């Protein structure tokens, strides 16, 4: 999919430039935008190093586990098919806390472990279980406290208030997560009704 998007954008752009007479602009932007991307990456380094460094401290101090503990009661309701002290629940909670702190790289392996455990609970079926779909719905709506990458990009382009989007992002994330849970529940009950 990403291959198609990538080629289509460049190909349509170049062909359109032929007819639109903008080939000069296109020619110029190919090199200047590549340079932009490098400058952007350098500004990303600053924020990522700081944030990942700080979050490593949070991880070592056990803050992530603390957070998982706080969210446990909500999650046992969200995943009624998983026994409260099953390892799957632990992995789901740590995946969620890692995402909350913007630790995407740490969250992914935990999420995969959670999926493994949920597959075991589902008798190793190749079909997605109810808990798996709920878990994916939670992950795609991504609950993040601090959108670090976006803050870095805003800084790079001289924002007067790079972090002013933190509250809007948290609220939007919250709404989309609630939405994801409701949609997931709706489809689940609809399917159950059909089976009866």
């Amino acid at each position: 999919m990403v291959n198609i998007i990538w080629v289509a954008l460049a190909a349509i752009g170049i062909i359109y430039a032929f007819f639109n007479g903008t080939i000069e602009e296109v020619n110029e932007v190919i090199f200047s935008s590549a340079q932009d991307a490098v400058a952007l990456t350098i500004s990303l380094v600053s924020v990522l190093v700081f944030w990942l460094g700080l979050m490593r401290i949070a991880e070592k101090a056990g803050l992530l586990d603390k957070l998982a503990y706080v969210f446990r009661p909500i999650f046992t309701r969200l995943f009624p098919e998983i026994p409260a002290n099953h390892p799957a629940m632990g992995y789901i909670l740590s995946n969620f806390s890692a995402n909350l702190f913007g630790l995407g790289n740490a969250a992914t392996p935990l999420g995969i472990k959670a999926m493994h455990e949920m597959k075991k609970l589902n008798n190793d079926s190749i079909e997605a279980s109810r808990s798996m779909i709920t878990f994916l719905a939670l992950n795609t709506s991504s609950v993040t406290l601090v959108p670090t990458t976006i803050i870095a990009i805003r800084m790079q382009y001289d924002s007067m208030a790079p972090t002013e989007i933190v509250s809007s992002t948290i609220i939007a994330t919250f709404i989309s997560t609630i939405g994801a849970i409701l949609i997931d529940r709706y489809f689940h009950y609809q399917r159950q009704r059909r089976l009866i």
Partner: protein
Amino acid sequence: MLVHISNWIIPLIILTVLLYGTFKKVPTYETFVEGGKEGVKMAVSLLPFLLGMIVSISIFRASGALDAFVNLIDPVLSIFNIPSEIVPLAVTRPISGTASLSIATDLIKTEGPDSFVGQLASTMQGSTDTTLYVLTVYFGAVGIKKMGNALKVGLLADFVGIIASLFVCYLIFGS
């Protein structure tokens, strides 16, 4: 009000982590450096992805094709008071993380980070994840062949996220 809260969130998180880490006797500075190294690796490994995508999107914009597309859909979207510049981002967000990040970057650069479109793009990019990526990675890793409703649920949740971003940005930043 909410803008002020935004300014407080990050310093408060930093303070909490540093004090709690010290309290738990974590070697804070050394741990910070260790974690920071991962940040360098992450940014560097992101470079080729971002560079490729940003060049492609810049070509699309410089040719005038992007403006033509935006002008085409503008009459419909202006009825709902939606800035049409945001549509390419909304469409690619669930499909590709780097493509949408590059589009968001392009919007922040051309429209300005503190413009309404810039704030909206930032919120949209930050508030949802790439559904297709999440599905492929998680289902792929454990060999799930039948996805059930997962894709439908994920895409609908993205739609809710996009509408929520619009709504929240109008409320907080106005225009």
